[in-house]
């Protein structure tokens, strides 16, 4: 066929294209500097050199929530501390490319690496970074079995707990003694497993049962499709809980389309600033804000402190006895009808 002949004749060009794709394509690592400045380090005991570079690595690295909240904060942290901060990682959910990016970045010996701990399989790569004496921390989602120096972020179990508490309170407010809820999430993501566990544990004995856990792949259109099917499959459903940033938008879309918005208890994660309006409109009962700016900023700061702290613990080597906290819970904010006006005002 003509297309195959073309392939054969232009195999070298195709190979070059493949290499180009592997350098910048959607399933492969992207890398972009986001912060570089020469201002003196804020609150640091030692001035940073301008060539000091920290790398933030995640899969799905251009997720709208990351772009809106994490990337600007990385830039700010770089500016405040007088160091360079770079973003890396595949722009899609691609664990193999994610692992490969961590390995390659650490091989280049940056001043520090922040890994978003999506999956336990990343632990081996994090351990390799530590073995190479590259300070490595996790943020947003943890890898507790790795040798990472610190985890900075929200306790995802608590996200499940808080969503569960809102489900229980809203059920009571509606005068019901029992209910059925469905969850939507990226089903295999480790942090979301923790959130679902917190949700399950909180709902025990509350009269609310979880009828199913569905996978929306982190896409709002998939969440809408799953929600529409769930409405048909479970006519006696009383609530939905969404654990990735796109779940909530999808749930609301499907409920709107079915003419049932406001008739369910819906708890979700923050997405866009506009999404908070759904609480005001009564379509969503509670939205979790993760304090992303806090944990992102402090992830850079923690690495910076590890490199620049002038003390040790009882004179011990800092690689054996770290000079930064092993766990930093940055907490969360639950947005409900009680405080949504305040949040909406802050978005303007």
């Amino acid at each position, binding site marked *: 066929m003509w297309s195959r002949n*073309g392939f054969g004749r232009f195999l070298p060009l195709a190979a070059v*294209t493949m290499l180009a794709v592997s350098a910048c394509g959607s399933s492969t690592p992207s890398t972009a500097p986001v912060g570089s400045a020469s201002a003196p380090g804020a609150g640091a005991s030692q001035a940073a050199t301008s060539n000091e570079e920290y790398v933030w690595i995640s899969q799905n690295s251009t997720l709208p929530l990351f772009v809106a909240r994490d990337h600007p904060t990385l830039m700010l942290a770089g500016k405040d501390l007088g160091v360079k901060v770079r973003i890396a990682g595949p722009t899609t959910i691609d664990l193999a490319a994610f692992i490969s990016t961590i390995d390659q970045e650490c091989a280049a010996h940056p001043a520090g690496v922040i890994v978003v701990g999506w999956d336990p399989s990343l632990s081996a790569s994090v351990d390799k970074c530590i073995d190479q004496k590259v300070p490595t921390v996790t943020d947003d989602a943890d890898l507790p079995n790795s040798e990472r120096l610190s985890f900075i972020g929200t306790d995802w179990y608590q996200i499940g707990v808080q969503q569960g508490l809102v489900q229980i309170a809203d059920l009571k407010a509606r005068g019901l003694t029992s209910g059925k809820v469905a969850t939507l999430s990226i089903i295999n993501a480790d942090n979301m497993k923790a959130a679902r566990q917190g949700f399950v544990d909180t709902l025990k004995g509350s009269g609310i049962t979880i009828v199913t856990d569905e996978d929306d792949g982190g896409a709002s259109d998939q969440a809408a499709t799953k929600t529409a099917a769930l409405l048909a499959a479970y006519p006696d459903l009383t609530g939905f809980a969404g654990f990735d940033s796109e779940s909530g938008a999808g749930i609301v879309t499907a409920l709107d389309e079915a003419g049932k918005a406001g008739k369910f208890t819906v708890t979700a994660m923050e997405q*866009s600033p506009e999404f908070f309006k759904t609480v005001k409109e009564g379509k969503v009962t509670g939205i979790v804000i993760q304090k992303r700016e806090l944990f992102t900023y402090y992830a850079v700061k923690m690495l910076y402190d590890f490199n620049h702290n002038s003390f040790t613990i009882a004179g011990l080597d800092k690689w054996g006895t770290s000079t930064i906290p092993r766990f930093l819970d940055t907490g969360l904010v639950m947005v409900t009808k009680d405080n949504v006006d305040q949040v909406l005002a802050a978005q303007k």
Partner: protein
Amino acid sequence: MVSETTKAVLPRRPNPVSRAGTALGRSRPLLLLVLIVGLSTAMSIAFPALFPTRANISAVLLNAAQAGILVVGMTVLMIGGAFDLSIGGVLALSGIAAGLLAKDSGVPAPIALLAGVAVGSLCGLANGLIVTKLRINALIATLATVGIFRGITQLFSGTGVNEIGDSFKAFGQADFLGLQSPFWVMLVVVLAGSFAVSRIRFFRQFYYVGGNARAATLSGINVPRVMLLGFVFMGALAGLAGVLSASRLNAAVVTAGTGVELSVITATVLGGASLQGGEGTVIGGLLGVVFIALVQNALIISHVNVFWQGIVVGVVLLVAVSVDLLAGRGR
């Protein structure tokens, strides 16, 4: 009286069951139709209060709308012996373009939507030129351009466009006979596409190109031009799917269409198209999309655990594709 020897050489008259099996084996669309009717009937009997409801059927058809639009373009391309892996990127870029024009530039919604489709067509044109002029294999070319299209999307709008506007969302959320507009648009596209592929000379040329490109060239068909327009057609449909999705959600999402190319190619092949080219029908592709959507819906209605759903869908697809192969061997 017929002797034993004579009996042995007489052609056997196939029984009705065997004849039905052969007919199903010969026509993938017919097989899919039987499977869709069978699955729907079984689900209606097993879950009479849940499955055959207006809301559920509406949800299934709405779910199938996006892939239904895309499968028309993909079928045409696959008949011609090529396919397009960039449709997810085109879909996202078109939605973002329309959303930005409507929200940030104040362009009237209908014009913004048409501009989104035009962006999709331009992406298709770029794909077509790379494949036909540079003679780069379609797989490699579109694998490269999907990264480019997604990169452009994120450069223009890193976080997407939310709350685009009431006049914009009116197109994707309009309701007619209980079904939302994306379904009706899909129906029009499928009917027009089916008519074009079976009746219009230009579209019939894809069969010749995909069957034997050299013979097609010798018979006077301008193969590069046909394929170039095939890619433009695919791009325009991806653009249409993108703007409809943005309008339905009232938000253009930069991650829209992630993975859609594989599900559309799966549905197209399931519907009878060949990866070698020269075979396939638009109706077959649509039935493939509906069958997959129906299986996914049936699994949720049947309360199948999410971890089993992927396995079941995979097995069902393999069985569906194997039936006509087995029937073919039996002939």
